[in-house]
């Protein structure tokens, strides 16, 4: 047996947005005996993972792993739950569709549910695909499954995402971090010092001259990559596929709260509306080459933020790992920003190397991280690749990435979705978007032959009926929120 690799004893997190604080809290909480210091600089406005309020269901799991209860992480921090997104105008001639979190249909007969649906759709006899999603139907009705309740079929197994009040959420994490013993420095990084012999990050020097050293540095300070970028600037640009590069958002007066965000395709981008009990946020994500900033501000009166979509193929180099926008910048379509950041944090926790940050351990981290990022990009891009609108913005010129091309080809051919390691979105998420946008396969699973079409139709109708019968039992988002606030006030 060779000698034990020296363990990492101290970590410095740079960046005081929700990404940086999430990292500091998770590392302190989940890795025994680790000293964690945070340089809690405010993140820049274009650090999207630090700014976007909407999250995927994975954030709830992230909280669970930290031992954070939903009362504290969501309700007391001004957050609420969301069930999905309504997409409108993405495919000309088709009604809007909902991408909700949870299952679409239930398996029956000899093939997966969607093959039954596709077979019916091919002869024009299918109801909308999202009418077979309990979460989608519930969300369209403005209703929600109460927190802590595990309902019966068909409503079982739903996993809501969140809408955060980013400011209060950050304060909650910061308080938790201090409670756990995270050392906090305010101020900004003025200099990043590399060690002579191996180029490892030795210390960050703040504007006030204080030096903070550590074994491992986590760059959570936004897209500039002020720490990670000192090692190298290798970056993969995605702008030929994902052409949005500006975003503007503004808060408005409260409307009827909805567990469903609305995302409407526009001439040169897309607009969103999220209505929570706390208020309504509207935003516009667009391509600056095709829509002037003035015109965008005329729609949404806020500050326009510029960003460049792309990723660092090696988020981790030497003893420095980038997370959040320092690692990957992606438009917030389908709200993957915080998910990617938190997934990176989970991965740091579970793949913590020794102090030497051996290249093989780092390469294994980067391999997994890149696999995940690429598939999130593919999922976001598939919205565009299968959209149908006449404007120049919506015409795909560049060849799609090979991984998405093969996904779409296999799906178009026979309705099959290939399995990828580290995939974020499950089969039903892909189906919601692909089938919602009318991207139908030519053929279905050969195994479906054993189930006659009329049996499929009856089963689908029965399932829709079961959903329709059940929804009135659930409270509206507004009633639910009020009841929860009353409960925690007691």
């Amino acid at each position, binding site marked *: *047996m060779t000698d034990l690799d020296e363990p990492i004893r101290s970590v410095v997190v740079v960046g005081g947005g929700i990404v940086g604080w999430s990292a500091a809290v998770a590392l302190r909480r989940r890795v025994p005996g680790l000293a964690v210091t945070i340089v809690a600089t405010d993140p820049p406005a274009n650090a999207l993972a630090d700014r976007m309020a909407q999250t995927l269901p994975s954030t709830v799991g992230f909280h669970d792993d930290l031992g954070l209860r939903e009362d504290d992480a969501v309700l007391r921090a001004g957050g609420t739950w969301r069930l999905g997104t309504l997409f409108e105008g993405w495919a000309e001639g088709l009604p809007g569709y909902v991408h909700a979190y949870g299952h679409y249909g239930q398996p029956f007969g000899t093939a997966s549910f969607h093959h039954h649906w596709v077979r019916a759709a091919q002869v024009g006899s299918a109801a909308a695909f999202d009418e077979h999603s309990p979460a989608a139907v519930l969300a369209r009705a403005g209703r929600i499954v109460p927190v802590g309740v595990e309902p019966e079929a068909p409503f079982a197994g739903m996993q809501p995402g969140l809408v955060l009040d980013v400011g209060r959420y950050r304060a909650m994490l910061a308080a938790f971090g201090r409670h756990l013993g995270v050392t906090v420095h305010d101020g900004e990084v003025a200099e990043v010092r590399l060690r002579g012999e191996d180029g490892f990050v030795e210390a960050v020097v703040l504007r006030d001259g204080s030096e903070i050293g550590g074994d491992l540095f986590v760059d959570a300070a936004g897209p500039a990559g002020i720490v990670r970028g000192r090692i190298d600037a290798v970056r993969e640009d995605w702008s030929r596929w994902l052409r949005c590069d500006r975003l503007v958002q503004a808060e408005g007066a409260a409307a009827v709260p909805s567990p469903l965000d609305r995302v409407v395709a526009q001439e040169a981008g897309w607009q969103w509306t999220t209505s929570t009990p706390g208020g309504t946020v509207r935003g516009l994500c667009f391509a600056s080459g095709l829509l002037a900033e003035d015109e965008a501000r005329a729609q949404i009166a806020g500050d326009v933020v510029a960003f460049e979509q792309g990723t660092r193929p090696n988020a981790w180099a030497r003893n420095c790992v980038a997370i959040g926008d320092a690692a990957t910048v992606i438009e917030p379509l389908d709200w993957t920003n915080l998910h990617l950041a938190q997934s990176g944090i989970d991965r740091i926790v579970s793949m913590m190397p020794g102090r030497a940050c051996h290249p093989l351990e780092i390469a294994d981290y980067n391999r997994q991280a890149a696999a995940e990022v690429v598939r999130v990009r593919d999922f976001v891009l598939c919205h565009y690749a299968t959209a149908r609108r006449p404007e120049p913005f919506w015409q795909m010129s560049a060849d799609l990435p090979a991984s998405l091309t093969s996904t779409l080809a296999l799906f178009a051919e026979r309705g*099959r979705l290939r399995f990828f390691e580290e995939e974020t979105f499950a089969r039903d998420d892909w189906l919601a978007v692909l089938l919602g946008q009318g991207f139908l396969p030519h053929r279905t699973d050969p195994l479906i032959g*054993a189930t006659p079409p009329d049996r499929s139709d009856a089963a689908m109708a029965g399932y829709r009926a079961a959903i329709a019968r059940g929804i009135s039992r659930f409270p509206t988002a507004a009633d639910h929120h009020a009841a929860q606030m009353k409960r925690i006030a007691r």
Partner: protein
Amino acid sequence: METAERQRVVVVGGGTSGWMTAAALARLLPERCDVHLIESEAIGIIGVGEATLPHIRAFNERLGIVEADFMATTRATFKLGIEFRDWGRIGDSYIHPFGTFGRGTGDVQFHHYYARLLHAGVKLPPIEAFSMACTLARTNRFAPPATDARQIASTFGYAYQFDAVAFAPYLRRFAEALGARRSEGRIVDVDRDGESGDVNAVVLEDGRRIEGDLFVDCSGFAALLIGKALGEPFQDWSRWLPADRAVALPCRTETAVTPFTSAVAMPSGWRWRIPLQHRTGNGYVFASSFASEDIAADALTAAVEGTPLATPRVLKFTAGRRERAWAHNVVAIGLAGGFLEPLESTSLYLVQQGITALVELFPERRASSVDRDEFNRIVNMEYDRVRDFLILHYHATERDDSEFWNYVRTMPIPDSLAEKMELFRRRGRIVKYREGAFLDASWVSVYLGQRVMPSGYDPRATGPSIDSLVAGMEQMQAEIGAAVGAMPDHRSYLADYCPMPVAA
């Protein structure tokens, strides 16, 4: 919607893979295809006593095969894992279990805690003491796993050891009852379309011409269609897996009917021991560049435990696979598509993965390249991952007692495997993937069983105190001991559950 016309499927070859394919297609795609299998009794089948992986149970279940009936007919026994003897060093023995070490739950894998305690100087038994499957196997007991996931008795799976010569006829009856046709005859010619290169028909010795839309090549090493007719290149892996012969010799069972297969390292390869209800299968897989057939046959005859029931029989092979198992309208399943020695009982697993992929990607009259590419991606990935796992067994050794072991110990290995080994050596990390035959516990068992010890471990394993970990391990051993003690002897379980027909 495109109409799904019925396809004429011609299965070439009637061994285990041929009849597994025919049975699965007839059962699962009755509206999509007519199955016609051609076999020649003159050629015979390779089957030597088959050890399987737990996946076979899903295959049987999907076909509607009743376990006890199948086991009685094929004189099968249960299998909880594979015992490897003399691999790391002469005298070593470990079991690769179908199951977990520890409970298999929690964020941090059991072996990280185990490694931490070893580093702290705590004296621990081999890791298999913390595996329900291994402990059950070592005590020659068996009962099906518990279904309640909280019980330690739920932490294992099982497979079968059965007589492959009896399995093919069993599947044949099954397939024929579902409408599969069978023709007897030797194929002498293959008729290909001049333009597309697709196979139109195969021609038999007596002049019969059998047409088809899709041809499944189950002709074994002969590879009549994929190799001889289409010339699909074969990737030769013998530089990593030099064994190219096996000599087989069944014998009477003298010792226990073990609920596990044994793989015993030999001077120029390894020897299998597969206990069935009526006899024990033995074979010596060796590299002909290091030992002659006579030497191998003598070594095997000397090593088998009971009276030999036949004369030694030699098989020849080359490790590797076709570049593409599906080319044109020919799908190779089984040995025609590739061969990996049965060290980890993967032969039927690979057949099964091929069949599953074919059923899911079953083509229309003109197969699209998308179907073929996806099939080949899946099948190639399975072969490549099994390959690395097999090479590990040879390479992770300290043996220097023969030319063969000196070669495999020092040979260059694929980068993909070298990285996996180094990550385990450094931090006990298992390179993670969700697809493939062998997952974390399999790799852990071989690494630790063959003396590849991690120098580090997951830092989260330092959370609990040493004392509490030691107490937890003791408790787990006690729990396993109690669960194992409540299970019956393997042989008596078989006698109750699936005794072979007396007349057999």
